[in-house]
């Protein structure tokens, strides 16, 4: 699914989180929103996911206006910064949550839910952790469970907020590869937020550099490195 963002603005009281920003994300792309804290990247991601309502501007999914679309109807697989796993539910119940929340007409049967959850557990290469609680998992395992939970709803896009932020360096590298593989096998349009330029440059097809609520530059990693259009991009990538 491709995403068109047109003159999107967001203010919180007197603070402007996003100055009008426009961006087109082609279907199937793996896009990084890169910038320091306070650059508006998370706000942009949350607007795409329907968790924030923009003050002005439009969002289109495949050309259809989705600006006012309810969060429940967006089918956006969202992975939260600290994963936000339901701590009172087992891993199985976490992943099954989205399927069980469907209206009765479109809700899969028990056997079907069981089958799908196990297929997702296989996909994240943790086939045996279904009965465990989130508190019994390592950080890397939690991240993968959060990804499986987001994928369970058969999403139209994947949105990830600092998906590797809370992990140590070694696990981070492994999981980057994991996300790349999941993206390539599902073909989902994927947008992730990061403040780590290495991560953005290594993983993404397209990097969107943001600062102070504005988009500084958009392009493939190689292009950003060879032809930065502003001083900010140049220094931020050089760190």
């Amino acid at each position, binding site marked *: 699914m491709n995403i068109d963002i047109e003159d999107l603005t967001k203010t919180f009281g007197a603070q402007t989180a996003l100055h009008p920003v426009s961006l087109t994300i082609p279907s199937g792309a793996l896009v990084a929103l890169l910038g320091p804290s306070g650059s508006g990247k998370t706000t942009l991601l949350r607007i795409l996911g329907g968790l924030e309502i923009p003050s002005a501007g439009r969002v289109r999914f495949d050309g259809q206006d989705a600006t006012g679309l309810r969060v429940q109807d967006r089918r956006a697989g969202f992975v939260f910064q600290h994963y*936000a796993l*339901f*701590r009172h539910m087992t891993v199985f119940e976490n992943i099954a949550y989205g399927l069980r*929340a469907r209206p009765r007409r479109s809700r899969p049967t028990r056997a079907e839910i069981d089958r799908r959850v196990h297929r997702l557990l296989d996909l994240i290469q943790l086939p045996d952790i279904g009965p465990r609680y989130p508190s019994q998992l390592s950080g890397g395992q939690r991240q993968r469970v959060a990804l499986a*939970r987001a994928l369970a709803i058969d999403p139209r896009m994947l949105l990830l907020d600092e998906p590797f932020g809370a992990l140590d360096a070694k696990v981070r590298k492994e999981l980057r590869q994991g996300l790349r593989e999941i993206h390539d096998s599902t073909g989902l349009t994927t947008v992730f937020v990061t403040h780590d330029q290495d991560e953005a440059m290594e993983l993404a097809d397209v990097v969107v550099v943001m600062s102070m609520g504005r988009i500084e530059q958009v392009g493939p990693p190689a292009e950003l490195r060879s032809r930065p259009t502003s001083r900010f991009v140049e220094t931020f990538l050089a760190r």
Partner: protein
Amino acid sequence: MSDVVHPAHTPVTTEPRTVRLLVILLVLSLVAVLLLAPLAAVFTEALADGLPAALQALTQPDARSAIVLTLLVAAITVPLNAAVGIAAAWAIARFDFRGKAFVVTLIDLPFSVSPVVAGLALVLLFGSNSTVGGWLIAHDMRIVFALPGIILATLFVTFPFVARELIPVMLEQGRAEEEAALTLGASGWRAFRTVTLPNIRWALLYGVLLCNARAMGEFGAVAVVSGKIRGETTTMPIMVEMLYNEYLATAAFSLAAALALLALVTLALKSLLEWRHADVLAATRRH
């Protein structure tokens, strides 16, 4: 070297044995004098003339009506305050709005105002001398010196318990899990039922138990609004006082013991629940 005692094995936080014993002894004796002794005294006095006499005192019509009234008031006020407390905590923990700090302070008001003042305020508002009260009485609705007044007074006094327990828990948990539920397609109500409520259930239970204990035990506010009409508007604590003032020690202490017993039952219930769900409690602590 071998005969030297290494101080290194003892943790740095440990105090000398005598100090430890002294502190423990002090706490235990305070608990005994302040908490256990009065409780024991109530039960001994109640049973001074034997169990049959105590039970007989409880079956007197006035005592029975007091017990029924107290249970009725608790049964009405506790669920109401639980619902309002959840709503208040939710609003305060999840949303930013103008006057939020004021609302938080207001929730604490019943803790800082004397219950007698609260009762008096209700009498002033709804008594026969006020406009509202006059109108209500003219339309055959009694608030003061009747059940509605007792319920209002109890609601006021017990208002903070549930909200106070929930606000810190909900603030600490943040809204990410609820948002996750919404992105997975759950309606707001479903997210509340399946994610918010299970996360706050222990704080809620604790708040409800405290609220219940206070609702059954409230004296001051209820004493003012109820008018102490024997057999009609006397709750257990008020009946205890009336019986005691009439030198009916066995009856007074029997009723007091029954009230204490109700409180002990709720405490036991809470401990039982905590014990039975210890595994889930440990697993769902903040990770």
